[in-house]
């Protein structure tokens, strides 16, 4: 059976509840759904100065391909029965969603681990770049070593 996979990049915001419902509607084989939402904070990534917005640049074509490769790997590693990934680009203001990962499975362990794996890889491998727009200045967000460390723990020895 083919596992339903939805991967979407969009500039518009999305409704988390609607995405979860779309994944599980009409099915009786799903026993667990895990969702992760990444949300734009108002305090920025650096010294805590308030930001007005984030602008996300992405590499069209590669972004979809890279997410699809990681979804394929997640499906190979865990018995998932559905995956949805939505990632926004463009201007996002504090309080709005940035990214959503939803994983479904018969049992919770696969759904939890699959969602965490996908988020860790999205952060370090999917070609998106955040630029913070302050009150009077703007700057690219710097990558964090802790994100590389988080992704590295899923590597198979």
């Amino acid at each position, binding site marked *: 059976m083919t596992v339903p996979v939805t991967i979407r990049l969009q500039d518009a915001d999305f409704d988390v509840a609607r995405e979860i419902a779309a994944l599980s509607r009409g099915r009786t084989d799903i026993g667990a759904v895990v969702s992760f939402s990444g949300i734009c904070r108002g305090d920025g990534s650096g010294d805590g100065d308030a930001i007005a917005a984030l602008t996300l640049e992405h590499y069209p074509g590669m972004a979809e391909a890279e997410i699809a490769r990681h979804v394929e790997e997640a499906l190979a590693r865990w018995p998932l029965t559905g995956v949805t990934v939505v990632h926004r680009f463009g201007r996002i203001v504090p309080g709005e969603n940035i990214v959503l990962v939803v994983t479904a499975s018969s049992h919770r362990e696969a759904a939890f681990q699959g969602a965490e794996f996908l988020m860790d890889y999205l952060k370090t491998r999917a070609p998106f770049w955040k630029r913070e727009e302050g009150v009077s200045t703007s700057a690219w967000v710097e*990558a964090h070593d802790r994100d590389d460390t988080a992704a590295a723990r899923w590597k198979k020895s």
Partner: protein
Amino acid sequence: MKVLYFAWVRERVGKAEEIVEPPPAVRTVGDLIGWLTTRGDEYAHAFAAPKVIRAAIDHAHVKPDTAIAGAREIAFFPPMTGG
């Protein structure tokens, strides 16, 4: 081949994409970075810290020692900060 730039690499180079024809001695991704750096101050600035720069060939991540032969599209960008 087509070369694309993203985020601050794009800003420093001053363009999002261009067609380049490097000489045959430019064989790897690292060679291409070295060759681009000779094309002007904006390139030298963008690639001043080559270890930081990430690259992709035809939508897949590659290392600096990857050969560029046959590539249709090569992209250069900073470490990713999505999610």
